[in-house]
């Protein structure tokens, strides 16, 4: 809990301070993240390959769009793609480490349910991570990209289930974070619906005058 909350706060501070710099040098930063993830993959279980670093990035990605308008949201949304790619790089390292571990210790086919849910979340995450890279995103149609990224809700759900089923000492942390996310997402959805109906109402009022 200390690590995940601490890292999330650290990334948030870095985004608030260096948002432009992160965007400008994102490819170099991805390269550094890949190197760190590869090195961590070859080591014993550690902070990187146990999934804590990946999760701390995804917490920011999850909440970014449902925050109130303002400085924090603007900065987070500006670096959301980068944060998602960092999270994905470290999550891939975590997933591969455990898959290799399961093969090495011959429990790939008799692992607990949370292991398979974790692998499934990794599979869902891959297309999202690839299409978060700007040069690939630019090649896609906006509508297709948006539709594909609806899968992120499935990904967050699978990650939540994976973490809750592990039933670690951090269970309460995961429950609080994902419950808060559901509440925030619900509020954002209601707000968007309200704004849409207000807009339609205004247009309807304007309608007869312009006709």
């Amino acid at each position, binding site marked *: *809990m*200390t*690590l*995940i*909350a*601490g890292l*999330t*706060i650290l990334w948030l501070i870095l985004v608030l301070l260096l948002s432009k710099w992160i965007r400008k040098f994102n490819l170099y930063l991805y390269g550094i993240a890949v190197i760190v993830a590869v090195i961590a993959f070859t*080591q*014993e*279980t*550690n*902070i990187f390959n*146990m999934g804590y670093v990946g999760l701390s990035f995804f917490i920011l990605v999850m*909440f970014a769009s*449902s*925050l*109130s308008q*303002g400085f*924090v*949201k603007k900065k987070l949304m500006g670096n959301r793609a980068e944060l998602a790619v960092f999270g994905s790089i470290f999550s891939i390292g975590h997933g591969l480490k*455990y898959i290799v*571990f*399961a093969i090495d*210790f011959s*429990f790939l086919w008799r*692992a*607990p349910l949370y*292991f398979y849910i974790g692998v499934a979340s990794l599979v869902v995450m891959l297309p999202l991570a690839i299409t978060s890279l700007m040069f690939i995103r630019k090649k896609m149609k906006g509508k297709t990209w948006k539709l594909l990224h609806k899968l992120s809700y499935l990904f967050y759900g699978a990650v939540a289930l994976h973490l809750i089923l*592990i*039933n*670690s*000492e951090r269970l309460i*942390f995961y429950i*609080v*974070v994902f419950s*808060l996310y559901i509440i*925030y997402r619900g*509020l954002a959805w209601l707000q968007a619906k309200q704004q849409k109906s207000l807009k339609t109402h205004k247009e309807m009022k304007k309608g007869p005058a312009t006709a």
Partner: protein
Amino acid sequence: MKNIILGFFLIVLLGIGIVREPIKETADFIAGASTDTYGTQIDLIAGVSDGGYSEDSLGS
């Protein structure tokens, strides 16, 4: 308001974490040691007993 509540929750969770999880264990884990707080649940399935030693280990 939502931002403040989220920030508050993050700081509270960090505070609870610091109280519940000994800082020494967090520091040890960052340094690469497997601790009680940050032990992997999957170790149990792979046949690693408490303390991180294999049950077949002759050294215990």
